[in-house]
């Protein structure tokens, strides 16, 4: 493989690994604030139990997010120097604002949030929790602004092949930003809802009937049931926005080769770019036209419009976009079924978690990571869907790649991949380990015997 392909796989692997953890911490920060505020209001210890368990998951996820994020900030330079050389005047300030308004805020107050409960007044601990949650959301905001600008750039002018900012308001509020940001925040909320429901169901199945686990199971199910319809609606809006600004991406998502009316919604197909057609199509007649144009004979753009006269392909690779999109939608539908089913049973039987059949609780455990699947599939849809462009209409991905020998990139890629596999295994293992340990109350604190005055202090750090 050449340097370009290896660098793309490396960046793709890195950002895929990275996004798993912010997706958890963005919403989990707000859920922790909710637990803390419920505790402040009711004084009920179950909320503090919930806080203590989930703040550990937060700390672990946050560390994973930080270290993989640092890796990305360096890879801009080591693998993609052309990106900053061309659009640095726009990307630079956005990244700088992310570091200054978000990274320091969350990193500094995280220490107080994790370890400060008995050291600072209650209000300061609650404030620290709020600031960490706010920081993670700010971080998401700035990076989504930059990402959206790469899809729908505006507010700039090109001089000698370099982009210069002309209107910062237009850059920040570029056409796809509000949709993408909302879609991502909701994705984070759903990921956390199903993670909380899944791990709580796991504890429940192991026989944990504590108030803490009841509270978190309810929180997870209701949060999921509340957010999923909003997300489906927002996803549809985002799709319409993409149709307007990046029609070639929607054409790939629908697997539609010719611009035509009465386009079916394909449930299954194997897109073939050589023959420029689909094999084994199974579809609902007219449905894609109805979803995208709100009428059965609506005209949907086709991929063949995005091939230049000399045969250069200016649309994304079809199969990965087509399939990632279907995986995302299918996961969303499974989320809808499970969360509404569970919420319905809990409400109508009026017995909370006791009203849930075992089958539903068992289903919740693997669905704990459904948010990850949907988020990754969604990001693959939109990012592969932007190819061959890196910044739509300004520069292709190929233009940005560094002139590093391919064996170097292959070496680092191999190293990163093995570490990611190791860490992901360890992460998921530890989540379930913590859940098992948490059964029947909170994690017991081990105290190793020590001599003299050291006794009070030297206890394993948690």
């Amino acid at each position, binding site marked *: 493989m050449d340097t370009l392909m290896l660098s793309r796989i490396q960046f793709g692997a890195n950002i895929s690994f990275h996004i798993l953890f912010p997706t958890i911490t963005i919403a989990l920060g707000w859920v922790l604030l909710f637990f803390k505020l419920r505790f402040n209001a009711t004084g009920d210890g179950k909320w*503090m139990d919930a806080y*203590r368990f989930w703040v*550990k998951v937060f*700390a*672990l996820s946050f*560390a*994973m997010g*930080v*270290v*993989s994020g*640092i*890796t990305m900030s*360096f890879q*801009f*330079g*080591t693998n993609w*120097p*052309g990106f*900053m*050389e061309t659009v*640095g*005047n726009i990307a*630079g*300030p956005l*990244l*700088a604002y992310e*570091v*200054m*308004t978000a990274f320091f805020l969350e*990193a*500094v*107050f*995280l*220490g107080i949030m994790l*370890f*400060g*409960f008995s*050291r600072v007044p209650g209000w300061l601990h609650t404030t620290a929790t709020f600031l960490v949650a706010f920081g993670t959301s700010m971080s998401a905001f700035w990076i989504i602004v930059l990402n959206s600008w790469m899809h729908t750039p505006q507010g700039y002018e090109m001089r000698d092949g*370099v982009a*210069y*900012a002309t209107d910062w308001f237009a850059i920040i509020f570029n056409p796809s930003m509000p949709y993408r940001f909302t879609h991502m925040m909701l994705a984070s909320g759903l990921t956390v809802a199903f993670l909380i429901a899944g791990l709580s169901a796991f504890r429940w199945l192991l026989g944990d009937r504590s108030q803490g686990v009841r509270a978190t199971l309810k929180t997870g199910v209701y949060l999921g049931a509340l957010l999923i319809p909003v997300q489906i609606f927002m996803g549809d809006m985002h799709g319409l926005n993409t149709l307007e600004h990046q029609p070639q991406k929607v054409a790939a998502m629908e697997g539609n080769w010719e611009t035509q009316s009465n386009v079916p919604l394909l449930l299954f197909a194997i897109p073939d770019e050589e023959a420029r057609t689909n094999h084994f199509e199974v579809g609902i007649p007219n449905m894609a036209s109805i979803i995208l144009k709100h009428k059965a004979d609506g005209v949907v753009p086709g991929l063949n419009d995005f091939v230049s006269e000399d045969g250069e392909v200016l649309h994304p690779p079809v199969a990965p976009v087509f399939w990632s999109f279907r995986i995302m939608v299918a996961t969303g539908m499974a989320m809808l079924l499970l969360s509404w089913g569970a919420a319905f049973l809990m409400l109508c039987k009026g017995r909370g978690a006791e009203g849930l059949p075992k089958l539903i609780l068992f289903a919740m455990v693997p669905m704990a990571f459904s948010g990850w699947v949907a988020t990754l599939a969604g990001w693959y849809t939109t990012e592969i869907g932007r190819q061959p462009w890196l910044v739509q209409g300004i520069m292709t991905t190929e233009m940005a790649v*560094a*002139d*590093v020998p391919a064996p170097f990139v292959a*070496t*680092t890629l191999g190293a*990163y991949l093995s570490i990611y596999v190791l*860490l992901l295994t*360890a992460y998921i*293992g*530890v989540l379930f*380990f*913590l859940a098992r340990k948490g059964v029947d109350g909170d994690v017991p604190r081990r105290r190793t015997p*020590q001599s003299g*005055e*050291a006794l009070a*202090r030297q*206890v394993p*750090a*948690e």
Partner: protein
Amino acid sequence: MDLFGDPAQWLPFTFAALMGVSILVYVVLDGFDLGVGVLFPFASDSEKDMMVASIGPFWDANETWLVLAIGLLLVAFPSAHGTILTALYLPVAIMLIGLILRGVAFEFRVKAPTPHKATWNWLFFAGSLMTSLSQGFMLGKYVMGLESTLGTWAFAMITAVFLTVAYSFIGACWLILKTEYTLQAKAVDWAKGGIWGLVLGLGLISLATPLVSPRIFDKWFTAPEIFWLAPLPILSGVTVYWLWRALGRLPNETDAGARTPFMLAITLFVFSFGGLAYSFYPYVVPEKLTIYEAASAPESLFIILVGTVFVLPMIAGYTALAYYVFKGKAAELRYD
């Protein structure tokens, strides 16, 4: 020259200064917590818990200074960012893997099942060591003008070792400040050993830098500069002597002067960094690209500067708050 008349002059200078400050703050702050990691094999298991407890609330924010420094290089001097990082491709990758391992080991070593703790402790040490060595290697390569020859490679290997020693030295000084009893006594011994490595490393880089570049030689060894630069090496020498004296008085009954070694170590880091910064100004890629040639468009720099002016004091403020909340001797890290 009217420095503040032309934004194409003063903006790059301001950003180079900001970047310099970020790197310095990073080297001091992450320097001590990386150093604590490098010292891990010399400590017993319960001491390891205490060592992590002393840096637990801070390490994350410390590392953010690296993101800020590299971010400023990225946003203010984009072409230099590409040149430097592609030239340092492999050491950067090793550093990143090191940072990943040690960052997650903080969490995993106490959250994973107890039998795995030894492995995570080892990975915490290995990650800290990889990070320190590769940063030292990059420093050496940078001093050598990013040239790739056998000689520069050998020099970089030496600076890799000395920067690691310097980090473990400031890490030991931090432990003297934050711990008690046998661990503190051990830290004093570590610092006494480390200081000689530090002096050797400082001397080596101070000698090599002017010899590699005639331009840097002229900046230091011509009149009148030599007279007002002379205090820097002299003050550094005095600091080293003072450090040695301070370490000799520790540990003691009242813990008097436990803060001194850490403060003096910071001073020494500041002097060394000041010397390097003076040598390389105005180049951002040694001998190839000045900060004025590499700078982004003034409009973009100005937008960032506005934010920086407001945000940096806030960052300083709440960082101070965090160090205040966790002041005094390190204690068990607990979530309740």
